[in-house]
């Protein structure tokens, strides 16, 4: 192919897509350099020791009585802040019960704060607690209403706690937020940051394939033997 035509096409598509190519390479490099362990929130919390007390477990009859239903779509027992709890999904709704007493548990603001403090591994103090009826952007993979417990530490740790179950569903910090910003730039889904299968990115990807392939072809044309002899001279 004509060198001039190839270079022109490379250049003009580059003019249209240049900014996105710069953004892709910079955001790609940023995500490669930001430690993914920190992004995942590792080290922000400690694994809670499974604390068993000697109180016997409440029998099923007690749980059924509190729930007011013997029908369930799901039943799950786990630990919240060192205590065993049972989550029962009945046709009427979801309930959280103390596994020892069968008493209902409600995850209010104070309880959420206690859960967050119990799991927190850092040096800071609770700086604020916010209730979210639907998950905010940085906890978008969670569902239901959440308590956001923010600590006043350096990494700006925030724990998201499910109001329904008391589980810590997300742990966010500065590393995650920085990563997520670059991830948004990379996937071009500026509103939700989650989809990478939309028309804009498909069009941009097609254009970038063009740039890269013509660029590789151009490499065969733009180098002369003299470039490499000069390189060899520098080395000696």
């Amino acid at each position, binding site marked *: 192919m004509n060198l001039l035509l190839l270079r022109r096409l490379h*250049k003009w598509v*580059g003019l249209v897509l240049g900014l996105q190519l710069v953004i892709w390479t910079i955001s790609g490099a940023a995500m*490669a350099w930001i430690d993914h362990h920190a992004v995942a929130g590792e080290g922000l919390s400690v694994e809670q020791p499974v604390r068993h007390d000697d109180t016997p477990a409440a029998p099923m009859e007690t749980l059924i009585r509190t729930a007011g239903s013997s029908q369930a779509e799901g039943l799950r027992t786990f630990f919240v802040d060192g205590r065993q709890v049972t989550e029962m999904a009945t046709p009427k709704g979801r309930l959280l019960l103390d596994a020892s007493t069968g008493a209902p548990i409600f995850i209010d603001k104070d309880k959420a704060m206690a859960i967050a403090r119990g799991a927190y591994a850092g040096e800071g103090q609770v700086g604020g607690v916010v209730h979210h009826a639907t998950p905010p952007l940085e906890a978008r993979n969670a569902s239901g209403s959440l308590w956001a417990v923010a600590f006043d530490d350096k990494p700006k740790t925030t724990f998201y706690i499910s109001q329904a179950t008391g589980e810590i569903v997300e742990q966010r910090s500065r590393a995650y937020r920085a990563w997520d910003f670059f991830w948004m730039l990379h996937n071009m889904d500026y509103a939700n940051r989650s989809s990478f299968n939309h028309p804009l990115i498909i069009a941009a990807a097609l254009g970038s394939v063009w740039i890269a392939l013509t660029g590789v072809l151009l490499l065969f044309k733009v180098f002369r033997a003299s470039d490499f002899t000069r390189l060899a001279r520098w080395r000696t």
Partner: protein
Amino acid sequence: MRWPWLARSLHKWLALIVGVQLAIWTLTGLYMVVVHIDIIHGDHLVRTPPKPRFDLTGLRSPASLMDHGSDHSARLIALRGAPAYVLDGADGRRVVDARSGAPLIPLNQAEIEPIAKSIYAGEGSIETVELLAEAPMEIKNRAVPIWRVEFTGLGDPTLYISPQTGELVARRHDLWRAFDVAWMLHIMDYKERTDVNNPLLRVVTAAAAVTAISGAWLLVYSFPKRKRRRARSAT
């Protein structure tokens, strides 16, 4: 130093080093954005299981069956048509009868086949059923032993089912496998396909960023209009 010369040299020499990887990034990126992630995940290969409905009357409470000191969670499932608890803890997983608390034995091949058929929503029929003692690369990190059920449909659709619970653990097909290769090439971790912070990727992405920035810089000198304007202002 002449700035256009610097921009051109940077762009040219860096592209010589990372150009092929840039082309690989755009091609693998294109594949990953064009084929929808739900298809990659194989959502079309499986049916959504109906919501279970349990009658809790007469069952033991899950907490009463948990092993003090090791189990950290329990959940109720239906196994062989009867309620059972899956107990997870430091010592691994146990599945017990929800009425008696007696341990339940793993599902055998004759039991797995109808389960696999009831989950599978794609074309074709069962080709092979095998209990794997070691997790293959495409489901690494999953607990073993695990049943692998391969179907005859297009793209070698494969379901992985837990022998302990009868639950679908993973689904794979050729579009997923191609995505996995694209991902490997994209993050340049040719061994584990998981480390997005590997040194090679870090160096090459940094070089690629300079390549793109110098390319954008080069655009400033590459359009004749500028020259014309400069020529006009000179007169």
